[in-house]
């Protein structure tokens, strides 16, 4: 059937690009991680990575920052996106436009803006000094906490974008029926609303987590590599002048990828219980 063949031909560009730029690099990373530096195969890179307290701490730090910022950003997005949906159409579109615009505000410019705001000579720091308070006593931008705050910031627009269509699935009549049956608004959300969007919430959180874990530019700009993060370590091993070690980088990359996949599976299994209901 030439129709079939014709169709398969149309898929060739896609197949080519996917193989060249997704499959091969993926395989290459895995292959690289199994190299021992002399052309043979071994798990020595993984051993190096896992036994190094330095790298393990990097992984732990990355995990901590990403999970906290992802959870906080998800909560903000869930509430924020719902509120935005309830605005008048013109205002709503304007707010979404601004939100989408600020989703571009990541990496170096963002880090810099935060430095201006709450860095050592930041605006907020100075204001607090006027009241006799030292911001540094409570909060240090150039630390894990500071990084978490910056991450949360740039995850929110993405979260709002992802959660926005999820609320299409909640019918207004559910809320009305629940109210008539005696539920308060909060009870409605607890028993019906949140369960209905739960899969989307989990999905959004996974994506935000993956995003945070891989964030590189903001971290570099803020800390000049002084903080031990997995993504920075990988970057340093690949393009650094001192410790060029692409094999180790590959191993760490695979570990990072596996953390993401694992988190994805966890969130999917949490949704599966609910998913049975959606059938």
């Amino acid at each position, binding site marked *: 059937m030439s129709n079939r063949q014709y169709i398969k031909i149309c898929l060739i560009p896609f197949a080519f690009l996917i193989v060249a730029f997704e499959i091969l690099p993926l395989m290459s990373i895995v292959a690289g991680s199994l190299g021992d530096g002399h052309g043979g195969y071994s798990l020595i890179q993984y051993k190096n990575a896992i036994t190094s307290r330095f790298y393990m701490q990097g992984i732990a730090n990355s995990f901590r920052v990403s999970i906290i910022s992802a959870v906080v950003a998800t909560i903000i997005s869930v509430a924020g996106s719902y509120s935005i949906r309830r605005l008048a159409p013109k205002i709503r579109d304007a707010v979404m436009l601004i939100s989408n615009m600020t989703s571009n505000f990541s990496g170096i410019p963002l880090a810099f803006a935060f430095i201006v705001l709450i860095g050592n000579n930041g605006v907020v720091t100075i204001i607090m000094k006027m009241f006799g308070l030292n911001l540094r006593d409570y909060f240090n931008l150039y630390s894990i906490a500071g990084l978490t705050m910056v991450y949360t910031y740039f995850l929110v627009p993405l979260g709002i974008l992802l959660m926005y269509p999820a609320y299409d699935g909640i*019918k207004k*009549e*559910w809320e*009305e*029926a*629940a*109210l*008539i*049956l*005696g*539920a*308060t608004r909060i*009870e409605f959300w607890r*028993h*019906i609303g949140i*369960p*209905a969007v739960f899969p989307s919430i989990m999905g959004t959180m996974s994506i935000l987590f993956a995003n945070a874990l891989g964030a590189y530019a903001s971290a570099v700009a803020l800390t000049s590599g002084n903080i031990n993060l997995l993504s920075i370590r990988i970057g340093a091993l690949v393009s650094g002048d001192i410790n060029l070690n692409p094999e180790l980088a590959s191993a760490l990359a695979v570990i990072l990828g596996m953390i993401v996949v694992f988190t994805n599976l966890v969130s999917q299994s949490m949704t599966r219980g*609910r998913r*049975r*209901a*959606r*059938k």
Partner: protein
Amino acid sequence: MSYVTVEKLSKSFKGNKIIDNLDFTIEKGEFVTLLGPSGCGKSTLLRCIAGLEQIDGGEICIDGKEVSRLGPRDRGIGMVFQSYALFPNMTVRENIGFGLKMKRVNERERREKVDAMMELVDIADKAEARIQEISGGQQQRVALARALAVEPKILLLDEPLSALDAKIRKSLRLQLRNIQKQLKITTVFVTHDQEEALTMSDRIFVFDKGRISQMGTPADIYSLPQNEFVAGFIGNYNMLTSDDVEEISGARLEGELFAIRPEVISVYGEAPPEKGGVLHLRGIVEDTVVLGSILRCYLDVKNRKIVADMLNREENYFEKGEEVQLLISQKEISRIR
């Protein structure tokens, strides 16, 4: 003391008056239908009674209590939505028990009440099913059970049967009415389907553009329309002015506008039997349509279009173009104006 009293109710949307100064009462245990075409405000009225819409003016009293300032939770109503609005993450049992759960009824009592409800609507065999797994008719019954489980003061139904196919609709109509009679619960039912309104109700309120055009029993509404709108909306009335009547029958009637039901017109091929108090007309058959048990005959009487309904019997079949004679008893002619 009426159970439900509505006084001077008004509601507007974006400058359009949807409900215009409405007054009516409903007795305890009565089954009232709000009947009217799409967009006439009947669903809005229901939602105002339920507390899902804020009213712009007037008062609503349920069981002696003025409720227009209360939220839907506190009015003591039960409601069945057009799309049922069953909660998708819960089973049939959980759905029905939801209202009781919100009222903090303890688990044993809740279970008893839910079981009783499921028996009432005959859905006990599907107690643990998810709502996506049951049919439309079954979902409707679950929605009804859920609304009744909390023993509301009044039951509101917003076109609950419109999403079902004809056969199920007919059987559910009966079930619904029987349950209502059994529980003696005051019910307000919204529909645009005349047959539903006529078969189920104690009283019908016919709605036109936010006002009640006529209130009455099904018999009154059907046979004694009081204005042009009702006559045009209910049944298939032939509308004739007094000049029309004089021209086609020679009789001069008192009044300006008359409505004649198709089933009161008798059509004969040859000379009809002599009777007093009837109008005698001559016309030509344009078409005959079989509607099932009814034959609908489209006639031309001196250039006026008349529709006559007869039982589907051999003697009532006429040919196109055939000249026929019609008898209409004067008692059956409704005067509109």
